[in-house]
């Protein structure tokens, strides 16, 4: 069954955030790099970077939907636990904090205020990490084990949105 043209034309960006040389912090980047090797679609773009605030806004402009994969360190959840952030979490962080640049929610709100075409829907997957302050390549065992779960979550979401999503090179289907 084909999808309505308006839905089909919607563009999605999948962004992996983090620092690949800062231990577990690189999990978002590793995940999205792997997803980009597995699936493709003309309306889906993949990016991985160590960005925040204004730079993230630059990436998001022009897309209808966004999927972000990042690490989080709350100390409240088991290391390696994969979670989805509720939409209200994003908005509750609209505030002035004390480091350089603005946060994601503020960046999005600014984009809307200035009539920039920012995504109407953003899904954020996070994984609880143990160490994001030590320079080291590679994640700890628990966080590395979360990567397939994150991949599955993102690919399932993309499959729901784009039924003609192409799977490259016979990689196992996640659904």
């Amino acid at each position: 069954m084909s999808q309505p043209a308006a839905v089909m034309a919607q563009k999605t960006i999948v962004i992996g955030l983090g620092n690949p040389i800062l231990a577990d912090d690189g999990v978002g980047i590793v995940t999205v790099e792997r997803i980009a090797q597995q699936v493709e679609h003309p309306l889906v773009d993949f990016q991985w970077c160590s960005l925040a605030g204004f730079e993230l806004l630059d990436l998001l402009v022009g897309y209808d939907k966004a999927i972000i994969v990042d690490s989080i360190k709350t100390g409240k959840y088991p290391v390696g636990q994969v979670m989805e952030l509720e939409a209200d979490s994003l908005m509750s962080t609209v505030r002035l904090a004390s480091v350089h640049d603005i946060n994601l929610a503020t960046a999005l709100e600014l984009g809307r205020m200035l009539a920039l075409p920012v995504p109407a829907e953003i899904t954020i997957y996070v994984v609880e990490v143990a160490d994001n302050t030590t320079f080291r390549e590679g994640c700890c065992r628990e966080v590395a084990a979360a990567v397939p779960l994150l991949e599955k979550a993102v690919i399932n979401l993309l499959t729901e949105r784009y039924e003609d999503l192409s799977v490259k090179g016979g990689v196992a289907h996640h659904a």
Partner: protein
Amino acid sequence: MKKISIDPITRLEGHGKIDIFLNDQGDVANAYLQVPELRGFEKFCEGRPAEELPRIVPRICGVCPVSHHLASTKAVDGVWQVEPTPTAKKLRELMLSAHIVHSHTAHFYALAAPDFVVGPDAKPEERNILGVVAKVGLEAGKEVIKNRGYAQSIQAILGGKATHQVNGLPGGVSKGLTEEERKEIEEKAISIVEFAKFSLKLFEDIVLKNKAYVDLILGDVYKINTYFMGMVDEQNRATFYDGKVRVVDPEGKEYAKFAPADYLDYVAEQVEPWTYLKFPYLKKMGWSGMKEGVGGGIYRVGPLARLNVSDGMATPLAQEAYEKFFATLGGKPVQATLAYHWARLIELIYNAERLLELARDEEITGPDIRRIPDKTPSEGVGIVEAPRGTLIHHYRTDEQGLVQKVNLIVSTGHNNSAMNMSVKRAAQGLIKKGKVNQGLLNMVEMAFRAYDPCLACATHSLPGQMPLEIRIFDEEGQLCHSLRQ
């Protein structure tokens, strides 16, 4: 899958902290700032080919990648004892100017303007860039986004990527500039100069024409007396990419002027047990704690420092603004911490003008972009002025060019003592008889925010910013207030 909510008061580990200790009258006895530090960078670099470091160090954090890339590239020039070609130096400086424009724009509109345009005691939900745009208008907001984006795209043209640049090589750069690219940069630089003029005028109209704000800037609450450090050219004008490092004392007299390679004769670092971040100080004076004034050895870096150590600016509009700055604030050196914001805008205009000058330089599209190193690698120091201040990279290698030793002193490190002293001074001036509220604590934070401290990795961990926690302890050391932003 589990769905979670992150609310503003959720504790996130690895955040910055300001601890304020009250005495039995409820006044501030002491205050300490703690910022987390990344660990293990030296070990991470050991054994790697030194020429890889310029591509690795931009990953230290996503906030000032160009500064790290260029300090590192200059350090590897030193390791191979090779002088880059004139065109290569200009291309590197062009990229640094674009980076300063980009960073200073973000800081002013996202972090400084909310306190002045919206108001220092406004509600936190309004005291942000959205509140600024609501006040200055949507068209101005669009100019902020447009020109910040222009600066970002110039960095991408020159560095290969908008962040995590890859063009620096010992002896030069890997990519030259085509005439088409030069024209694009020139057009963008023209727009950036106009935007910088607008930003400076905005500051003058909103802040300098408001006596209450000028009094706030010049008041004792936001003043400490320190030395200042920054890079100058041969005529002692402020410069960012190349020059000598000049230090002036708290009265404005030149204390030292040295070549980057000699920095260890002038700077040493103190380790304190309560924080990971070291405390650099002027070595010849020795460490005597966080002591103000002549002989104290505590110095500051960054926009205010660069103006204080220089005898002028090398571009006309910046020079005009420089003269007005010192005439308004009572001559050199200016010790008012909040003057960092005005200084930052003067640097915005300098770098905008410098962008345009370099884009129109006949050599900038020259083909001679690299001198091939032919010496045995050994040791090198690279210093540039990053947006937040002097940035030092120092590498030592074996004869194969494999890294044996790395030392970095970053801008936020240089300012560590001064930030602590500024926070303590502000807390002592603002918190009396135990009376604390959100507005007062924001005003304490303003003393810290003026330095535009870079807290590295946390800037890209969700929820997007590293929270800062302020804790107030009573005379018995019991926690009595805690606020997180």
